[in-house]
């Protein structure tokens, strides 16, 4: 491995390698891992099976009967220097607006987040609605849009004891991250609200409408708006 490679490579069992971006810039780290994942997926590398790119790292899994750490790491070392870390993930990023009913039954941890941060619930909502988020990756469960968290004074700890059921549409925070839950699952993140829009559609291709590199914003919605929007699908805004 070249000592100048802007990435750290570690093994994760005999069938996987993790590559973490070390460019000194988060955006470039993120583009590095997604571009690397794309290269591996498109090149049909023998024995390579799955790439899971996230914020600053990518897990590359392979069939150890067909290839091994040495071969995969050599290919990473050869591929990384050829990546253009300033190129956007998509030429045509799409934008989504996500209406959210904050607090109450659908947002049981809003007050908790307010307490942890020393803000009022309104200030937490305002902070959550302020940024235009970039979808960093698709995660668990069911293709969640994994986002950078809003600007809050402290990182939000995960719940000590995860909930056994977080419903579809839950809008949540943990650490310096934020997301929407497309499918009901157990979860330890702080749920601050709920969107009435359906995110995951098993009959659609792709299953979720956003890709890493697309952007989205949250907007407060009233109970009446939520009722009106219930069952609708999250769709991108018309290109302007």
């Amino acid at each position: 491995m070249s000592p100048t490679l802007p990435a750290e490579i570690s093994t994760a069992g005999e069938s996987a390698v993790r590559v973490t971006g070390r460019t000194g810039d988060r955006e470039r780290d993120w583009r590095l891992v997604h571009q690397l994942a794309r290269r591996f997926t498109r090149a049909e590398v023998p024995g390579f099976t799955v790439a899971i790119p996230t914020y600053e790292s990518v897990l590359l899994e392979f069939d150890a009967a067909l290839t091994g750490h040495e071969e995969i790491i050599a290919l990473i070392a050869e591929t990384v220097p050829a990546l253009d870390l300033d190129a956007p993930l998509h030429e045509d990023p799409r934008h989504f607006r996500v209406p959210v009913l904050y607090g109450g039954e659908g947002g049981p941890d809003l007050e908790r987040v307010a307490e942890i941060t020393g803000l009022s619930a309104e200030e937490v909502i305002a902070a959550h609605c302020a940024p235009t988020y970039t979808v960093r990756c698709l995660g668990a469960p069911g293709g969640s849009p994994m986002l950078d968290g809003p600007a809050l004074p402290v990182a939000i700890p995960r719940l000590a004891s995860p909930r056994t059921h977080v419903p579809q549409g839950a809008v949540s925070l943990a650490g310096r991250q934020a997301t929407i839950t497309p499918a009901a699952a157990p979860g330890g993140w702080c749920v601050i609200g709920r969107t009435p829009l359906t995110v995951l559609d098993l009959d659609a291709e792709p299953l979720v409408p956003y890709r890493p590199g697309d952007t989205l914003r949250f907007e407060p919605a009233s109970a009446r708006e939520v009722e009106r929007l219930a069952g609708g699908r999250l769709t991108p805004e018309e290109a302007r």
Partner: protein
Amino acid sequence: MTGRLTIHEASLAMVTDLGRTRGPQFGLPLNGALDQYSARAANILVGNAEGDPLIELTLFDLAFTPDRDVLIAATGAEMTLEVDGAPLPQWEPVPVRAGQRVELRGMSAGMRCYVAVHGSVEVPHLLGSCAPDTVVGFGHALSADEHLELAGTTPSPMSPYLGISLFNLGICPPCLDGTAVVDVVDGPEIEEFGGTAHRLFRRPFEVSPRSNHIGLRLGGPEVPVRTSTEEKISRGVPVGAVEVPPGDELLILHRGRGVTAGYPVLGVVTSTSLDTLGQVRPGQSVVFRHVDATQARSDVRAWRKALDALRNRVTTAFSSLGFDDGVTPNQRG
């Protein structure tokens, strides 16, 4: 050539395959057969591609009747296999005539039995795989009185010489009884467990009933302790990741695991030992054994060689009976 299986009895039986490799990049878990060796072997024994859909039954009995002649094979957990009341061996191709009743009963060791049918079965796919995904609600549990369409387009190689152990197919079924031995290589965050990581290898652990295809929980007298408390940013976690969530148990992620998570990974169970974990029962004792990646890799290659050798012997057996058609050439699926 159409046909179908009429299911008489089923509970916790699903149609699955080797997993959804296109899933993880979209945030969906891999899923698929938890004992990949047994699933692959079942398909090979009936001349299918290793990745063809097949039935995975967990713990409970299964009974069905095909409406045309079909070759089947049952592997994995130990059960009694009967065709119209006559006992037949597992880990062998078994010919079933149209209208005969197939019963798999009394699982006595292991957790999951695989039943492959020559030509496979017709089921919906999501991102190229029929493997159930309980989180997004994809997949279909078999139930009594339903029909499962057969997908095969060629007649099954039927011969009275199959199913009587005439051919030594030389397969080595996994050992399912007693203490399970599970190999683990060091994980990327082993240092976050300070000096406690070695506790994993010191004493046996016991499989908790709160274990499933997403993850297995195991308790023991001395569980490693996570010494770091920092919040980790979500990243891809490998199947087989050994984690220590809050509480007194280990969590080992299996094929249904969420693809991203924020817990440090102490170790990673080897691919071949993941099959072992796919067969352990609640209450069963597990001993973890520390291995290096080189050892793990040579184990996977031995596993691969055994399956390839089985494929060759099955092909030879079928052609010696005059069936050159209907056998899928060496495809690993």
